[in-house]
């Protein structure tokens, strides 16, 4: 109508909604793949599968990058959600960084091949599971930011809960590593990996805090 194409406005909107939902799906799926990657890596007998999974994470990361660029262009070209545009774009960028962190971890495992003794396997798997749960809670927080503003706080609280859990598990595992009889260089090497996995949770918590601020700003 008079320069404002209503049909295009609504179709653009639906397309963008699908893209944003798709982006959050990717973050969630990358987490689930990562959850399987760690035990797969630890189980040396399945190295072919591990490489396959790393490749899958790489593909998903590229897809997420593409979506971020498309959403950015559409939001600016169509001047959509002028009041929340910068918040949404920043949110997508930070979530993209999270996907990048998952991918980085996969690459580091693939390149540096850390040697985790069997006694630490279960702790590392549990830490990974907590980290993935934390990101899952973040996905819910982000979805509620877009659709159900009232639930943002509740879901954000779950992120904080898992982040604390992860901190506890990280500290316990790091302590166990340094209390072990392993040589110092290996201890440092393992600590680096454990810390890098735990950092995913820190980033997720920062994003959840951001989303809660955006939600306050978004209130009618």
């Amino acid at each position, binding site marked *: *109508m*008079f*320069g*404002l194409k209503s049909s295009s406005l609504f179709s653009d*909107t639906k397309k963008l*909604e699908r893209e944003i939902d798709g982006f959050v799906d990717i973050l969630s799926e990358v987490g689930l793949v990562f959850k399987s990657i760690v035990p797969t890596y630890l189980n040396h007998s399945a190295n072919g599968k591990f490489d396959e999974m790393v490749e899958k994470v790489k593909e998903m990361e590229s897809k997420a990058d593409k979506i971020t660029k498309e959403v950015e262009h559409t939001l600016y070209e169509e001047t959509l959600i*002028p009041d929340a545009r910068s918040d949404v774009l920043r949110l997508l960028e930070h979530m993209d960084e999270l996907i990048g962190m998952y991918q980085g971890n996969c690459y580091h495992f693939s390149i540096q091949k850390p040697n985790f003794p069997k006694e630490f396997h279960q702790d590392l798997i549990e830490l990974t599971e907590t980290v993935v749960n934390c990101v899952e809670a973040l996905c819910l927080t982000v979805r509620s930011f877009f659709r*159900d*503003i009232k639930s943002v706080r509740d879901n954000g609280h779950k992120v904080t809960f898992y982040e604390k859990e992860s901190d506890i598990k990280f500290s316990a595992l790091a302590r166990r590593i340094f209390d072990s009889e392993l040589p110092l260089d290996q201890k440092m090497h393992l600590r680096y990996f454990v810390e890098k996995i735990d950092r995913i949770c820190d980033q997720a918590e920062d994003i959840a805090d951001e989303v809660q601020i955006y939600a306050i700003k978004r209130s*009618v």
Partner: protein
Amino acid sequence: MDISIIIFLLGGLFLGWSLGANDAANVFGTAVGTRMVRFKTAAIVCSIFIILGAIISGAGTTETLGKLGSINALPGAFAACVAAGISVYLMTKAGLPVSTTQAIVGAIVGWNLYTGSATNIKVLITILGTWVLCPVISGLIAMGFFTLTKNFILKRKLHILRLDAYTRTALLLAGAFGAYSLGANNIANVMGVFVPISPFTDISISSFFVFSSKEQLFLLGGLAIAVGVFTYSKKVMFTVGNDLLKMSPVAAFIVVISHSIVLFLFASQGISNFLQSINLPSIPLVPVSSSQAVVGAVIGIGLLKGGKEVQWSVAGRITIGWFTLPIIAALISMILLFILSNIFNLTVSF
């Protein structure tokens, strides 16, 4: 048509331009200022609906304004319009959101005082009463709409992007309604004083359609308003949208719809007749101020949010401006009438 008539009508057109530049900004200011609707889209929709409102529903408020003081000479009408236009310009320069409504009422009273004509006190009190009622009603409507809309949005769990699309459409529709109501309610300010002395004659197109002289005047006034919208309102719209009313697009929609309903209420002969038919007190058909309606709606929403966001000192300053404007307009009107009658030897009343 005599050239002097055209010159005198220019006074009304100047006021129309001023209305288009200032009051129209109230209708689309928040939508354009928040970049939810493009200026070009807003200007086109605003102009079309202001002209339609003026021609279709502009008669009611014109009648009331005519009762306040029937200016019976073109130079007098010219002086009143120019006085109103200048006073609106001065107040706008001072950064106070005012309306042509208050200015023209002051200017007419100025004409009455200068020419010794009686001011219909009953009508004046009705008009002044509606100036108090207008922001109050607008505020109450805004509070009601705000609560309903907020609950609706929370319940429906609309995606942020879909909400954005709906808000844009709603802003455009509410703006169109607001522009129609503004045209219907405020055309009296621009052309009302010229109605008793209209230089036009009725035009009959076949036997079915008669384009009356009053409608021709209203069309002319509507076009002047449209020119004001296109030439000067952009700046004012951005000021209203960004500085005066910093709010969410949804709240902006609430402000526009509340303002539009109030203007429509005070211009709709249909609603007035309906209320009378069911023995309820009818709504006086009075030109009300779009600025008052907007400010009322904003304060209403602010109060609903706890009142902390309301800048009470600014609200006070605006209110003082509403009292000052008619007085300034009356004084300028009297000065202009003095100049026209004593320096140019023109008859300002019969």
